[in-house]
């Protein structure tokens, strides 16, 4: 079969199965919930991959974008849009609103990112998380520290599947385009990139905005899944979770975030019987993995199917080794 049909076919198959599960209740709700969590984590990790993996930055602020998306999407669905049995139709609008708001915040963060790199960017994004948390705690319209409740459960397997696929596809297309080469150029050597007329400012802004947009959508899905959000949920620890998933799977590849998100989520769920010891076993396993495979599971190589037709550039991490 011609390679270009595989994608759409798989997508159709996926849609069919998720629609079945949703409307025929074919799947146990607990398992369905886990799969939805995995999907949301994939969205978050794939979008983080754009900034941390392909652009080589070190942003720890992803939870802030998720928070903004979650709150704005919930605000739209609870307070602004009308209620009724058909209001699930407005759900994509709420998600888009959440994504847009998060993208705006992404734009604001991109500006300091022009000058700061690496550890300084980490601080800036950490500050972003703290400030976002504080803002949501103090603003009365968003429920304050009590959190926002009364959110309807609009998230279902189909929506998560659609959004996750959209995220991966957009990231893939962006990375394989001219912009993508610009992004990777910034990662490898920003000064050189400037010299070959890559508009680094534009590239950075775009990367942050797209990354934040999808993180916002993920946040909206998350809010409409657990039906209750409060500022505590979106702490530095949540950002750390996404970082772990990203680097576990292998940053700078498309399959990496998917694998990382899936494996980490499932592993933690499965190890529940260990109780508290799962947080000992899981990190140790991660450390061992890092020692023997520092680039994550994917090891910096992209799986053949995700690679574009002409063979494409360097795996991540090589630039790092040459640097002092």
């Amino acid at each position, binding site marked *: 079969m011609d390679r270009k049909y595989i994608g759409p076919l798989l997508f159709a198959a996926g849609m069919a199965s998720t629609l079945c599960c949703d409307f025929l209740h074919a799947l146990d709700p607990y398992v369905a919930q886990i799969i939805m969590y995995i999907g949301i984590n994939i969205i978050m990790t794939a979008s983080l991959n754009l900034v941390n993996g392909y652009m080589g930055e070190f942003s720890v602020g992803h939870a802030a974008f998720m928070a903004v998306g979650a709150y704005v999407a919930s605000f739209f669905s609870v307070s602004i849009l009308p209620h009724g049995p058909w209001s699930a139709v407005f759900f994509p609008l709420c998600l888009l609103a959440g994504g847009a708001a998060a993208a705006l915040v992404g734009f604001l963060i991109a500006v300091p990112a022009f000058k700061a790199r690496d550890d300084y960017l980490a601080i800036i994004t950490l500050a972003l998380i703290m400030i976002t948390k504080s803002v949501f705690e103090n603003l009365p319209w968003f429920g304050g*520290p009590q*959190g926002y*409740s009364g959110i309807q459960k609009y998230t279902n397997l189909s929506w998560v599947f659609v959004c996750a696929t959209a995220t991966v596809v957009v990231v893939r297309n962006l990375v394989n385009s001219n912009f993508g080469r610009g992004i990777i150029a910034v990662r490898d050597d920003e000064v050189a990139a400037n010299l070959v007329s890559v508009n680094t400012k534009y590239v950075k802004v775009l990367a942050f905005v797209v990354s934040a947009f999808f993180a916002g959508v993920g946040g909206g899905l998350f809010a409409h899944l657990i039906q*209750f959000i*409060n500022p505590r949920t979106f702490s530095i620890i949540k950002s750390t979770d996404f970082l772990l998933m990203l680097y576990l799977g292998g940053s700078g590849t498309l399959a990496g975030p998917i694998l990382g998100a899936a494996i980490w989520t499932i592993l933690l769920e499965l190890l529940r019987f260990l109780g508290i010891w799962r947080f000992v076993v899981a990190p140790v396993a991660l450390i061992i993995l890092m020692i023997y495979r520092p680039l994550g599971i994917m090891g910096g190589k992209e799986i053949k199917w995700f690679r574009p037709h002409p063979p494409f550039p360097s795996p991540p991490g090589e630039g790092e080794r040459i640097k002092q």
Partner: protein
Amino acid sequence: MKRNFLFAISSLLAIANIVFLFSCDKSDSIKIGLNAELTGSVPVVGKSCVNAATMAVAEINAHGGIALADKTVQVKLLVEDNEDKAESAAAVSQKFVSGGVLAMIGPNASRNAVPAAVVAESNRLLMISPWATNPKLTENKKYIFRACFTDDFQGNVVAAFVYKKLGLRRAAVLFDVASEYNKGIAMVFKNSFVKAGGAIAAFESYSTGDKDFTAQLSKIKASGADALFLPNYYNEVPLQIQQARRTGFTGPIVGSDSWGSEEILKLGKDLMDGLYFTTHYAADMATAGAKKFIADYQARYGSKPDDVAALTYDSFGLLFESIQKTQSRDPEKVRAQLSSLSKFPGVTGTMEFTPGSGSPIKSAVVIRIKNNAFTYFDSINPL
């Protein structure tokens, strides 16, 4: 590389299948889920809850089980840790829904109970929270109940106590702005105290996890307040009291039911002497039934039960009573029975439910800390 990828996908699917299999249930007992804070910032609460729950279930099973119309069935307790996180509490709630439990007991902290209740309500799962006092928990809900009083009631009780019994007119509050329970009761206290004629000299806040309150407490000292209200959890209060005393604040310090664990005596020691707090029951003025509960708990676990344990025991008592009265395991019937249960003699006092409200009508007690122990001081009945 392709082989590795396929291998990864197929193992993921296999794992998913196994998880699915494990979630099917196979026996005939009545399953009750316990959604407890075993890890996180208030693990003592979770531990008391589990202890009391295990004891309640063991007791009824020792008597043969619950008597239904046609037979007597054993009770099975399923315990899950909600990690003191809102989304985990909701996830556990969902897990219990899928697991086919008759009812869910817990969570205890309001910040976890409210999200779990949202999931329970939309899935028509009967839920009883032993310890969550925030009014929002049972608002507009049919399936959600609690075994304790609400903060609306408690805030008024504390304000009345400070105003009338202690006779003080200028109160200050230091509360955790990032936590549902603390902020809620602080607001009720403020409104109630002002309505009674007092003044709020200072209304300071901090964020969960802070350890240094000297800035806020210096402000409180400078405001000339003569009473300090600390509606915060047992792991933070001793630090706050110590720092308050160091600024030179000598007035009485009052707390709410979040002080109720004996851990606070271990962490605070002499600092706690002579202070008051409102809570659900007092071990030293118990009824006969309560005395038996305390003795049994002490014999089984080697320590006195705190209010969380007593309320959990009562939650189970309420549930078992409702099941036995309807003689059925149909959740709808049990729920209907529970919502009109009257004069239930609980360990924490007599409780009565009125249809339409998930919160029971019951009294509060004021405890005074003396000689490193909780002693009963006063009871306040609902109007």
